């Protein structure tokens, strides 16, 4: 084990540092710090001259640690790291000290204090540099195939997109046929395109595609492994099969809420949901003169606080279709608030009013009542604008209900170790920054599995998730951060605290000769270090930010 030899390079950054910090004095100070074998100052350490000086001094003084005190690691660390690498030094043996952005620039009127602070920061940096250890980055191969769970609009679109890029896709659908909710739809807003025209070709493409293997009436039974190397067990009912994939897309969609017991639903065929209405329209069996639609049935209520977003527009769509089909028919839409978001939907709403669809606002504390005698006779509702009770003649009541999470979501979230929202939908890694990914690498999401979306949104998301999934598969490998956690099994008591803290499911509890120990999957670890901060048995080390290194920095700070 050669003794530690640290080279300290202090940058003037022109006047940016040198103008406020007494750089030569700082260099003299650095020379006397423990294990410092060489210290110098450069006008610009990041200049060609500075970089070559670093490389030269590494050779001449056989330095095995390099510390640069200059601007900020956020912009310049890569540059200096590669300089070290080129001089044959592992890049993780480099330490950066920020004496410009966080020192000279913010204490311009206090040269003496700035100089002292620069010394302290370098003292702390040297304390850490002495304990730095070389780290190796690993490469993980990525199997160029994808598992898509759910063969609705979203799932099929994603599958097709990836297949067209040449990746093998395993498309798993629990039902006996492809298509998902769309199979039941009549027309698609806003162009009133026939749903069949959209879905049938899609189904055919998927079915016929050489790169897509469809598994109907099949469930995902078990998923093991991590990005690039997922081992999946499929349950086909009678038999099971195993497939290996590099990425996974969750597109399980959602169900329409069936409001059993509300407004006489289930008691008479005269009361039905929007989806059931569309089936009748498709069959052409709709016979109704006076139709009352009630929105937000089972939505935005305490037990289901969320808004299903597009059901208002669905109601408008079907109202319009009824009027177009039979101008004599009366259609009322009873709503609490009308969500016709976006330009197109707003026009659609106006068109409905022009066609004579009547909108009545009701409130949660005085719900409409369906008057029934065997079959529907009318609907009584308190009209908020008129401020009085009105009775609407009606021979059909259509309940507009929200999409609700599939009950298998819980099981799938456990299997993939990805989170669910409090409503039971899947929860993406970050609403703004990572909308179609899970925190866990290699697993993506699209469609109504995430929250209720209409067809076009589902399709956009499908493309997005397919694109994301394609990246590692196209590259063929992933390079996880070398700054990862490491479990020293000698000391791990197997309490399992780290396992529940890791947002990336990178901490796995394993049985080793009868005892539980934690195991860190480098491929998944992002190096945040929250497991190390919590590990009560001191078994977890955070590479490059170890307890020893940080405690040494603190002690060095206090030496003042």
């Amino acid at each position: 084990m050669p003794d530690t030899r640290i080279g300290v390079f202090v940058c003037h950054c022109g006047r940016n540092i040198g103008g406020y910090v007494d750089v030569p004095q700082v260099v003299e100070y650095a020379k006397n710090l423990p294990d410092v074998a060489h210290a110098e100052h450069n006008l610009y350490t990041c200049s060609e001259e500075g970089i070559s000086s670093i490389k030269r001094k590494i050779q001449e003084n056989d330095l095995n640690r390099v510390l640069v005190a200059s601007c900020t690691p956020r912009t310049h660390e890569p540059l200096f790291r590669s300089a070290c690498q080129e001089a044959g030094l592992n890049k993780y043996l480099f330490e950066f000290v920020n004496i410009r952005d966080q020192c000279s620039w913010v204490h311009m009127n206090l040269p003496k204090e700035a100089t002292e602070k620069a010394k302290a920061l370098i003292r702390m940096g040297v304390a850490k540099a002495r304990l730095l250890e070389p780290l190796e980055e690993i490469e993980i191969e990525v199997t160029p195939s994808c598992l898509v769970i759910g063969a609705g609009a979203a799932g099929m679109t994603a599958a097709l997109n990836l297949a067209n890029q040449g990746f093998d896709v395993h498309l798993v659908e629990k039902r006996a046929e492809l298509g998902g909710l769309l199979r039941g739809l009549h027309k698609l807003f806003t162009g009133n395109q026939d749903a069949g025209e959209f879905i049938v070709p899609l189904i055919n493409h998927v079915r016929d595609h050489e790169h897509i293997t469809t598994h109907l009436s099949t469930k995902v039974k078990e998923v093991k492994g991590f990005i690039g190397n997922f081992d999946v067990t499929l349950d086909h009912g009678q038999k099971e099969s195993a497939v290996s994939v590099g990425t996974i897309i969750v597109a399980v969609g959602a169900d329409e809420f069936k409001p059993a017991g509300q407004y006489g639903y289930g008691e008479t065929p005269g009361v039905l949901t929007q989806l059931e209405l569309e089936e009748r329209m498709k069959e052409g069996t709709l016979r109704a003169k006076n139709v009352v639609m009630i929105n937000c049935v089972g939505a935005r209520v305490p037990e289901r606080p969320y808004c299903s977003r597009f059901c208002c527009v669905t109601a408008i769509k079907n109202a319009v279709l009824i009027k177009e089909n039979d101008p004599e028919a009366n259609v009322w839409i009873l709503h609490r608030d009308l969500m016709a978001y976006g330009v197109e939907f707003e026009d659609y709403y106006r068109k409905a009013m022009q066609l004579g669809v009547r909108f009545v606002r009701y409130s949660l504390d005085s719900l409409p009542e369906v008057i029934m005698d065997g079959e529907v006779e009318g609907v009584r509702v308190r009209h908020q604008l008129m401020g009085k009770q009105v009775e609407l003649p009606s021979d059909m009541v259509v309940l507009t209900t929200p999409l609700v999470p599939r009950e298998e979501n819980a099981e799938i979230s456990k299997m993939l170790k990805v989170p669910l929202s409090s409503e039971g939908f899947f929860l993406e890694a970050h609403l703004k920054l990572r909308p179609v990914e899970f925190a866990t690498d290699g697993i993506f999401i699209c469609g109504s599995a995430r929250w209720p979306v209409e067809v076009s949104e589902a399709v956009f998301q499908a493309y997005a998730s397919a694109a994301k999934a394609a990246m590692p598969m196209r590259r063929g490998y992933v390079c996880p951060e070398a700054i990862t956690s490491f479990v020293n099994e000698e000391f791990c008591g197997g309490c399992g605290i780290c396992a529940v803290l890791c947002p990336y499911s990178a901490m796995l509890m394993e049985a080793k000769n009868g005892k539980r120990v934690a195991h860190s999957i480098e491929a998944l670890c992002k190096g945040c270090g929250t497991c190390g901060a919590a590990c009560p048995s001191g078994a977890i080390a955070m590479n490059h930010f170890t307890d020893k290194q940080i405690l040494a920095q603190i002690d060095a700070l206090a030496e003042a």
Partner: protein
Amino acid sequence: MNKNGFEPLILGFACNWCTYAGADLAGTSRIQYPPNIRVIRVMCSGRVDPTFILRAFSRGVDGVLIGGCHPGDCHYIEGNYKARRRMELLRRMLGDFGIEPERLRLEWVSASEGARFAEVVADFTKTIKELGPLKSDATIAVGQQH
């Protein structure tokens, strides 16, 4: 030591993605703040082990400031929430030890909040100056770990 001439020693932890960037922005914007703070960069505020803070106080550091991403913006999804839970509990325990909980502060500073970083540092430095030096037998434990 009398409180007037007292220049406190302050340790800062800044998460790499938000607060450290915010601190850099304060620099590029040339916003001036008191020089008492010494920042240690960590990847995430969730890395900050209460042991680090206890060690700092046992070594006579007068105050510790931790900067993390705003709720919902954590680069590591929820490291900042974990930091908040740990520091809240630690603050309570510092009280038990007769150390003013105000000597430990957790703040959310985003990469775009250079000015806010400077304000936070200035305000915290002021607070610690008012509190005065950490009670002097705080340093008794130095070198007593076996």
